[in-house]
């Protein structure tokens, strides 16, 4: 036996999706560049562009790395290797989260840095930005789980449609949270109990989705 099979499968996925990750980061960077150009229109277009880049990677990665692997019949090749279904699931979840985290962290850091350094919008907007940018992460775990457990393009597309139409709904609910929008106009970020509760809730949903995916996969009797 050479290196861990799970490690090899993770490296394989990273290599296969390398271009998609770079493409997403380039999209996010382009959004930030437009945002930093200044002016209300540029900021509006830039932030939309930026968010769309993140939403796209949240749905494209599961489709490319999970749905297509099954649809294009690569899964039989992978499962001919000395790997169990649960090792495959473990490798897939780790590689997916890693592949999403790389552009996500870079883009969140880029957005926070842009707000901190350029002074185009109040720094009080940072907590809301973090809350809002966690939504694609939640969507990513939901779409990834649906793709892995559902074993079909249909489930992944359904999850994608639900998530993509929920972003504006989520924003609407955020605007209804007492005090949250008022704090966005302040010159310094306010990490209130409300903000931390929402961030904690989002992180909990992400962890719950990953755990649920793992649990449902472990109960499967037929893998191909």
């Amino acid at each position, binding site marked *: 036996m050479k290196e861990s099979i799970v490690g090899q499968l993770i490296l*394989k996925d990273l290599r296969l999706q390398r271009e998609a990750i770079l493409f997403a980061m380039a999209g996010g960077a382009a959004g930030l560049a437009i945002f930093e150009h200044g002016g209300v229109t540029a900021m509006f277009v830039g932030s939309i562009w930026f968010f769309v880049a993140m939403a796209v990677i949240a749905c494209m990665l599961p489709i490319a790395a999970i749905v297509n692997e099954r649809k*294009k019949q690569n899964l039989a*090749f992978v499962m*001919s290797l*000395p790997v169990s279904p649960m090792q495959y699931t473990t490798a897939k979840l780790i590689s997916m989260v890693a592949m999403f985290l790389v552009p996500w962290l870079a883009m969140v850091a880029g957005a926070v840095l842009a707000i901190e350094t350029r002074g185009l919008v109040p720094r009080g907007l940072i907590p809301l930005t973090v809350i809002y940018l966690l939504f694609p992460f939640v969507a990513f775990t939901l779409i990834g789980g649906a793709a892995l457990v559902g074993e079909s393009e249909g489930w992944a597309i359904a999850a994608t449609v639900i998530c993509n139409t929920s972003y504006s709904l989520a924003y609407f609910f955020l605007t209804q949270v007492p005090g949250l929008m008022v704090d966005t106009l302040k010159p310094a970020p306010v990490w209130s109990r409300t903000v931390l509760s929402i961030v904690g809730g989002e992180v909990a949903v992400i962890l719950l989705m990953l755990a649920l995916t793992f649990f449902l996969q472990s109960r499967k*009797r*037929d893998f*191909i």
Partner: protein
Amino acid sequence: MTDVAIELNGVGKMYPFFSLSNIDLQVPQGQIMGLIGPNGAGKSTTIRILMGLVHQDCGDVQVLGHRMPAEQVAAKWDIGFVSEDMRLYDSMTLGWHMSFVQSIYVRWDAAYAQLLLRRFGLRAEQKIKGVSHGQRVKATLLLALARKPKLLVLDEPTTGLDPVARHEILRELTDVMADEGRSVLFSSHNTQDVEQISDTITFIDRGRIIDSMDKEVYLDRWRRLRLEVPWGVTLPALPGIIGVKQDGRLAVATANAFVPDLANAYESSGARVHSIENMTLEEIFVANVEHSREEVEA
């Protein structure tokens, strides 16, 4: 180490519109077994069960001494598996796939892989999306063979190949099988391919194994007797005859346990035996399936 490569006992699997029932199968070490069945007979399901990819509802499966599916990881270190519906990654080259598999298997034989590249006329730097179906099958076979498996499981590998590609693959498999320690399970609905390389043959139909024995014994025991039946003569029901088709004075009897006494018995009844013909594996397969279906429906 066990001397049985594959052993299935009483294996069953239920699906809404198909079921695999009471599958008993044994492939001794060093043996090449051909698994023949029509489309939808249960060949792929049987193979997926023995690879641990599908859990059987009942029965025991042992592959290279490992219980399946629980010990599939340990078993798969020594299995080379190629199936008709297996595809490599389109966007990557064959060389990338070779490096990937080599990174996993300590027994990967790089020199043999290079030899197979040349023999199959493949190029390591070519992307998979640019190769033909035949080359893709050869590439998959290369990746399975160069890891030096003790057991080779081939699920319809020659389906959809042109005659030249089929010939190249079968020739390579024949060479591989010179290694007497290696066992092979080869499924196909193409009886010619199976006949060419197999030691033993198993027929499967509608989720049941209908017959399994040494290839030479099959070819030796099955015969077609062409008879002339004069008016007023009734052919007797004889043991070993599984079917008689009569059209006027001419009749054809199919024997699955032929002995010369069968011909004598027909002669004694008043019929004339015009010829006793050997049957091809395909004819045996078709006759076997038809006989099995008649038995089930009776």
